[in-house]
């Protein structure tokens, strides 16, 4: 379908063909009718944007930092084989074990095998998008290992049998009252009203899990090649408990998480905290280099690092899509996206939602499955403006739209319409004639100065609101006045 070496529509994409196409349009329509969701998003998104803006304007060097971060990531991606090799060597020197996983199934097998071989029964997990991506929890449960999510939001998601809907705020779609009700039902605690009491109840329940666990599983925010260090960033302290208390710690990272030097971390930590939550620094940043050393009384005795490909090398091979691998998962592009703010994270039917999700989900799961996602954008460009690593998301969304069309994934009517539109817009005379005809015809359907209904194939424009009519005098004719 395209002439690119790493075509995103290749059938080898995990899940392609097996899982049905993501119904972004249908999901969005349902989300728009969900008033609770609309209220929650309408409260949260502006507050996230304000916090980020305040934190960013405090740093005069912000734009320079973004440029530096993008350059570090590009350099690392261009030399990824070498940096991953260096990371592997340094992790081994520090006493850790490195595993490589080509896809999700292999990553699941590595982790469940490690647990089974050591007789590990109780897992605590800290929030990790990568473990969501590989669907780790059901695999561990099937292997007879209990899994408890310990990030407060993820714990709620797990108790409710739900999925997270935001990279950094997993239960943004849930009200405090619904969480309180869930805890009463599942934990047998009184029906609390205040978020303080609800949080306290979770702290108590989870403290017991931490003390009893023998396996801790985390993601990785950054992996430093020159020192063999993994970096885990959080606010709650659950990732610290997860990596400190259980006997075995398994961390899983995508191949793109490596950075060359410890010094580079200073750049990325400043960008990540301010972009994601508007903090100057996240509450806890753990730099872990191997397992605990001889004589130390806490920290995991065994440390395993799983390095996962799962479709990322296809992005790496794709010159026009590669920069998506710069992403540090801060969530800033979700928070400014007008489509995310209405549709919510679940509409994307993927671990990764929002603009970055619309770019990388087709890469990880195949364009056949995810081709509606790149169309779920107004191309307003707000995401590119906030991205701390300067990913040009609108350009990539357009690129994917083109590929979806060339792959025949876009309906015939849409394609015919686009062709007709191109034909008309190509020539001023054609536009003038068509506009004159449309102005004449619209008299039949304008009601009170609006167009409440349009015939197919234009009906989508009036499905949720009345469209404005064409002006009686085109802008073109007003020039010079």
């Amino acid at each position, binding site marked *: 379908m395209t002439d690119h*070496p790493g075509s995103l529509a290749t059938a080898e994409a995990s899940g392609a063909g097996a899982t049905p196409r993501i119904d972004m349009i249908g999901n969005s329509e349902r989300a728009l009718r969900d008033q609770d969701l609309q209220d929650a998003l309408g409260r949260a998104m502006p507050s996230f944007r304000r916090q980020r803006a305040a934190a960013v304007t405090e740093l005069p060097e912000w734009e320079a930092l973004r440029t530096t971060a993008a350059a570090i990531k590009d350099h690392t991606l261009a030399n990824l084989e070498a940096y991953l090799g260096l990371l592997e060597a340094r992790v081994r020197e520090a006493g850790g074990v490195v595993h490589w996983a080509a896809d999700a199934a292999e990553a699941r097998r590595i982790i469940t095998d490690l647990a089974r071989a050591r007789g590990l029964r109780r897992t605590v997990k800290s929030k990790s998008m990568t473990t969501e991506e590989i669907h780790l929890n059901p695999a561990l449960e099937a292997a007879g290992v209990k899994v408890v999510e310990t990030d407060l939001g993820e714990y709620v998601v797990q108790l409710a049998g739900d999925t997270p809907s935001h990279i950094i705020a997993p239960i943004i779609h849930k009200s405090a009252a619904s969480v309180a009700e869930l805890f009463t039902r599942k934990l047998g605690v009184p029906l609390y009203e205040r978020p303080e009491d609800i949080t306290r109840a979770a702290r108590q329940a989870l403290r017991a899990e931490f003390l009893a666990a023998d396996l801790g599983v985390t993601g990785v925010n950054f992996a430093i090649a020159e020192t063999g260090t993994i970096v885990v960033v959080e606010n709650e302290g659950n990732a610290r408990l997860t990596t400190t208390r259980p006997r075995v710690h398994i961390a899983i990272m995508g191949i793109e998480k490596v950075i060359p030097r410890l010094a580079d971390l200073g750049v990325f930590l400043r960008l990540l905290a301010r972009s994601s939550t508007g903090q100057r620094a996240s509450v806890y940043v753990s730099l872990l280099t191997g397992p605990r050393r001889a004589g130390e009384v806490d920290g995991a005795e065994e440390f395993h690092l799983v390095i996962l490909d799962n479709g990322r090398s296809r992005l790496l091979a794709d010159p026009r899509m590669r920069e998506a691998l710069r992403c540090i998962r801060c969530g800033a592009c979700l928070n400014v996206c007008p489509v995310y703010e209405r549709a919510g994270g679940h509409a994307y039917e993927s671990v990764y939602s929002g603009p970055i999700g619309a770019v990388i989900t087709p890469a990880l799961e195949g364009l056949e499955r995810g081709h509606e996602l790149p169309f779920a954008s107004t191309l307003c460009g707000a995401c590119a403006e906030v991205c701390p690593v300067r990913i040009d998301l609108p350009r990539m969304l357009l690129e994917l739209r083109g590929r979806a069309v060339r792959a025949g994934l876009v309906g015939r009517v849409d394609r015919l319409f686009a062709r007709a539109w191109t034909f008309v817009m190509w020539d001023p005379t054609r536009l003038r004639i068509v506009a004159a005809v449309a102005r004449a015809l619209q008299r039949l359907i304008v009601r009170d100065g609006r167009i409440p209904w349009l015939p197919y194939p234009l009906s989508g424009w009036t499905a949720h609101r009345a469209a404005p009519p064409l002006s009686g005098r085109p802008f073109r004719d007003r020039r010079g006045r």
Partner: protein
Amino acid sequence: MTRETVLARIKAAQAAVADSGGGGSQGGQAPATAELPVLPVPQSFADPAALFIERARQLGVGVEIAVSIDDAAGRVPAWCRHKSVHRVAVWDTPDLAPIVASLRTEGIQILRPEAPLGELATADLGITGAAWGVAETATLVLPSSLAQPRLTSLLPPIHLAVLSADRILPDLPALFRSPGRLPSALTLITGPSRSADVGLTPVLGAHGPMEVMVFLVRNVAAEAASPLA
């Protein structure tokens, strides 16, 4: 096996992008680190300790200023009484010895690093040192070691850190300037544990301490005499 598969895919991807003029390299074992961008130089603040104090207080972190470790040792017991602290987990480092001694004379129970987990979990307070402070973010930097367990600053509901003012760096880039040999865990702590997951309301003490207190040892006379000041 898989290692070779994944690395071969990456190598092929790099070659593909290099061929298309996209700035990929051919791989190999020695990345040209000279191509890495120049990093921002650490900032310079007139009074990093003052900035640390201001920003720590913005986070809800209490800061007490002591003129010496003995001064701090004299004041910690009263602070513990005020907070109804009876059991204290503490790092086994020489610079904290005066504080441990003064807590003992007050009849406060001391839990050493090797105390069983069940006892540690019941401590009312954890006392640690801090290898560095970071002024821009009001961050405490705690390396792990035999005498410096990670759980001391994590399990108890209150964390008290003793930080020497001359160990305050301007910002994170200053902290990460040279790798040296890292401990098994280097923990950066910025304020009390928090979560805003439920109802988007910030709550302190999600899993870690709900209160963080810093005793800043600021020997003004010594600072004035130091060529670094």
